[in-house]
C-alpha cells in the first residue's frame, strides 16, 4: 500500500506538478476547463494554505484541475484587480478576504477594484483577532491592561499587521470603546508581527487566533474577538463578555468577478460548501486555531454589507475616510 502510494507520488513529482487533467465524468457544460484560483497573497500565507487544502477536494468535486496562482502585493489589491479584469466566466476565482476587500476601496483613491466588483461565492473560515501580551507582562487581565493604558496614554505599543487592515481596525475600535490611547506599530504580515511581539519589541499584539493558539505557551491572551468562547482557547474571555462590543476578525472565502452567470456560481458555491462542511476539515481548522464557517453566496453578501456599514462608521468617527 505504502509502496503504491510512494510510486504514485513519485510519478507526480517527476513531472513537478504536471497538470492532471482528470476528464469530467459527466458532460455538464461547466466546468469544462481548468479553473484558475488566484491567491492575492504570498505562498505560505494562510490564504495559500487553505487553498492548498481545498485544491485536491475541489478537483475531485468539480472534475477539472484547479490551478493556484499567486498575485501578491498591495495587501491583496493586485490580485483582486486582476480578478475584476478577467472574464466573468467562472474559470477565474479568487480568495476573498474580509475586511481587506471592504477597507481598501474605502481608503485608497484607486484600489483598482470596488467591493461590488467582487461577487461573493462562499465563506469558509473565520479567524477571530485577539489581544495578547507576553507571559512576563505585568497585566493579568484586560482590566489591568486598560487601566495601565489610561494612566500612560500612548505608552503601550501594539503590534499589528498592516495599516487599514483587520488588526488596525481592531486597534481603532478598541481605543474608541475603552477611551484609551495606544501606539499601533504595523508590520508587513503575520509572521514579522508575531516575531516582533514574541521578542518583546512591542508590549502587546492584535493577532490572528491561529498565531495566538500556536504560541499560547509563551503568551497571555487577554481577550478574543469571537462571538462565543473560542473552541481552541476555552479559558480566554471574549471582548463581548468583558463589556466591549467588538468582534474583530478576518474572514476567508472565495469570489468571482461580477457578471459571472448565477448557475456557475451555484456550482462553485456547492463545491466550496461541501468542503467547508466536511467534518474532518472542520476539525483540522479548529485544532489550528480557526473557526470553520460555511456561508453560501447570499449570506456572505449580507455579511459583507453588514461589515461595510460597521467599518464606515468607525472610519467616519475617526475622521479618516
Amino acid at each position, binding site marked *: 500500500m505504502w509502496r503504491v502510494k510512494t510510486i504514485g507520488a513519485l510519478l507526480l513529482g517527476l513531472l513537478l506538478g504536471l497538470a492532471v487533467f482528470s476528464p469530467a465524468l459527466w458532460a455538464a457544460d461547466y466546468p469544462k476547463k481548468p479553473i484558475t484560483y488566484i491567491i492575492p497573497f504570498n*505562498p505560505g500565507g494562510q490564504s495559500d494554505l487553505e487553498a492548498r487544502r481545498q485544491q485536491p477536494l475541489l478537483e475531485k468535486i468539480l472534475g477539472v484541475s484547479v490551478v493556484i496562482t*499567486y498575485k501578491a*502585493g498591495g495587501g491583496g489589491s*493586485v490580485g483582486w484587480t486582476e480578478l475584476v479584469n478577467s472574464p466573468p466566466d467562472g474559470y477565474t476565482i479568487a480568495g476573498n478576504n474580509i475586511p481587506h476587500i471592504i477597507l481598501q476601496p474605502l481608503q485608497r483613491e484607486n484600489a483598482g477594484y470596488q467591493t461590488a466588483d467582487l461577487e461573493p461565492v462562499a465563506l469558509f473560515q473565520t479567524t477571530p483577532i485577539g489581544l495578547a501580551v507576553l507571559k512576563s507582562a505585568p497585566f493579568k487581565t484586560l482590566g489591568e491592561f486598560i487601566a495601565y493604558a489610561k494612566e500612560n496614554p500612548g505608552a503601550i505599543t501594539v503590534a499589528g499587521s498592516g*495599516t487599514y487592515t483587520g488588526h488596525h481596525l481592531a486597534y481603532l475600535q478598541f481605543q474608541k470603546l475603552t477611551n484609551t490611547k495606544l501606539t499601533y506599530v504595523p508590520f508587513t504580515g503575520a509572521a514579522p508581527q508575531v516575531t516582533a511581539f514574541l*521578542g518583546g519589541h512591542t508590549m502587546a499584539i492584535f493577532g490572528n487566533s491561529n498565531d495566538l493558539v500556536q504560541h499560547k505557551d509563551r503568551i497571555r491572551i487577554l481577550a478574543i474577538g469571537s462571538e462565543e468562547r473560542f473552541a481552541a482557547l476555552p479559558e480566554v474571555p471574549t471582548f463581548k463578555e468583558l463589556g466591549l462590543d467588538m468582534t474583530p476578525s478576518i474572514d476567508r472565502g472565495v469570489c468571482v468577478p461580477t457578471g459571472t452567470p448565477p448557475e456557475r456560481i451555484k456550482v462553485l458555491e456547492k463545491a466550496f460548501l461541501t468542503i467547508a462542511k466536511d467534518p474532518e476539515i472542520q476539525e483540522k481548522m479548529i*485544532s489550528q486555531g480557526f473557526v470553520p464557517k460555511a456561508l453560501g453566496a447570499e449570506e456572505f453578501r449580507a455579511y459583507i454589507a453588514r461589515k461595510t456599514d460597521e467599518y464606515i462608521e468607525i472610519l467616519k468617527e475617526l475622521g479618516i475616510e
Partner: protein
Amino acid sequence: MLENFLFAVSQILSPANLLLLITGGIGGIIVGCLPGLTATMALALLVPFTFTMEATSGLIMLGGLYVGAMFGDAIPATLINTPGTPSAIATTFDGYPLAKKGLAQQALITNAFSSLCGGVIGTIVLLTLSPPLSELGLKFGPPEYFWMAIFGLTIIGTLASDSILKGFTAGALGLLLSTVGISPIAGDVRFTLGLPSLQAGIDLMVALIGFFCIPQILEMVETGAKEYHILQYRSERGIFWKTIRELVAKPVLLIRSALIGVGIGIIPGAGGNIASLVSYNEAVRWSKHPEEFGKGTLEGIAATESANCSVVQGSLIPMLTLGIPGSPAAAVILGALLLHGMRPGRELYTTFGDITHTFILSFFLGVVVMFILTSLGSKYFARMISVPFQYLVPAIVFLSIIGSYAIRNNLLDVTIMFLFGLGGYLLRKLGFHSGPLVLGLIMGPFAEQGLVQSLLIGKASGSVLKVMFGRPLSLVLIVLSIISILWPIVSAWRTRSVKEKKKEEEEYNSVEL
C-alpha cells in the same frame, strides 16, 4: 534522540525516499536555473502532492527541492550573468567573468562544492544548536532590522570599487525604487503613476531580470558574435580535482561563509540574497587579494554559494523551534508541516522527533546528491555558452520575458522589466553597476520598516534615540557598519596612488561588472 537519529538514517536511505529526494532536487535545480521562478513558488506547487504521501516522504521531497534550487541558481548567474534567484546575485560578480575567461566549468564546480560545504555545515548547526540559536532571531527588533539594512548597504563600497560615488548613487536609487507601492506603515499610495498594479511595488525578481538580463543581452549584441565567441568554454582534463583542491585549501573562507549564512538565515525575513552579499563582502575584506574580486575569482563564488546554501538550514531553525519562518520558503514548509498536523516547537522534537530528524538529515543527503549531480552536469552546462550567438540571444530574451511574466502572470511586470532593462543598459554606459541598485532595492523595505517602527516605539517609550542607538545588538551592527564602510575607502586610498591611472582607464572602458 539517538533512536530518532537512527530511525532517520534508515528512512533516508530507503530507495523510495532516496528517489524522491533526487526527483525533488532535480526539480529544484531546474526551478533555480530559470530566472523568475523561485524555490518558494516551487515548494508551494509541491505541497498538495505531499498530502498523498507520508509526512516523512513529503518533507524529504520538499527538502530536496529547496536545496536543489540553491544549487541551480548559480548556473545562469555564471553563464549568462543573470541570477536564477535573488540569492545568486553575488555569484554573477565572479561567475560571469570566469565564464568569459573560458572557465565556466571551474566556476560551476566551485558552486557545487561550496554549496555542499555550506549545506553540510548548516545542517550540523541545525541538528545540534537549534534551541539555543532560535532565541537569537527574536532578539531582532525594528532597530536591528534598520541597522542590518544599513550594514547591508555598506557592501556597496565593495561592489563598486571603481567609483564609490556612483555605487552609492545607484544604491540610493534602489532605495527609492523600493518605496514604490503602498507604504508598509502608513498605507500611503506612493509613486504608482496611477497604475493600481504598481501598488504592489517593484518585484525583486522583475528588477533582477531587468537590470541583469536585458543589459547583458544588449551588451552581447553590441560586442557582436565575433568577439563574443573568442571567449569560449574550453574543456580541460582533471579540472574537477584541481578546483576542489584549490577550494579545500581555503577552509576558513568556506566555514565563515557558511556560518554567515546560518546566522542571517535565522533572522526572520532576511534570506539568501542578503546572506550571500554579506558573505561576499566579508570574503573581499579578509582576502589577501581583494583586487581580484569582481574579475573572476573562485573565492567570490565560494563565499556566495556556501552562504546561500546554509541559509536554507538557518531559516529552518526558528521555524522548527518556534514556528517562525526565517524565509518565505521556510514559510511554505511550515505550512506543509501544519497541514500534516505537526505543530512547531517542542512537539516536533519529541512526538514527531523521528520525522523531524529525517527531515533534517535529508538535507545532508540532499546536498551530497546535488553536489554529485551538478558536478557531473557542470561540463554540459558550461557547453551551453558555446551555443552560437544567434541562437543563444533569442533563448535568453525568451527566458527573460517568460520569467518576468511567470512571477505574477502579469504583463505589466514584463513591461517594467523591459523598461528597467533599458534603464540598466543606459546606467551601465554611465558607469553604474546593477549590483548596488538591486542591493538598495533589497535593503529598502528593511530600512524603511525598521526606521518607522523604531520611531513609533521610540515615541511611545519616550526616547527615540535610546531605541535607535541604545540596544546592544544594534550597537554591534552599527560598529560593523562603520568598519565596513571605512574599509574599502581606506584600502582604496592606499592603492589609489599606485593605480590611479589604470583605474580611470578601466572605469571609462568598463562594460562588465
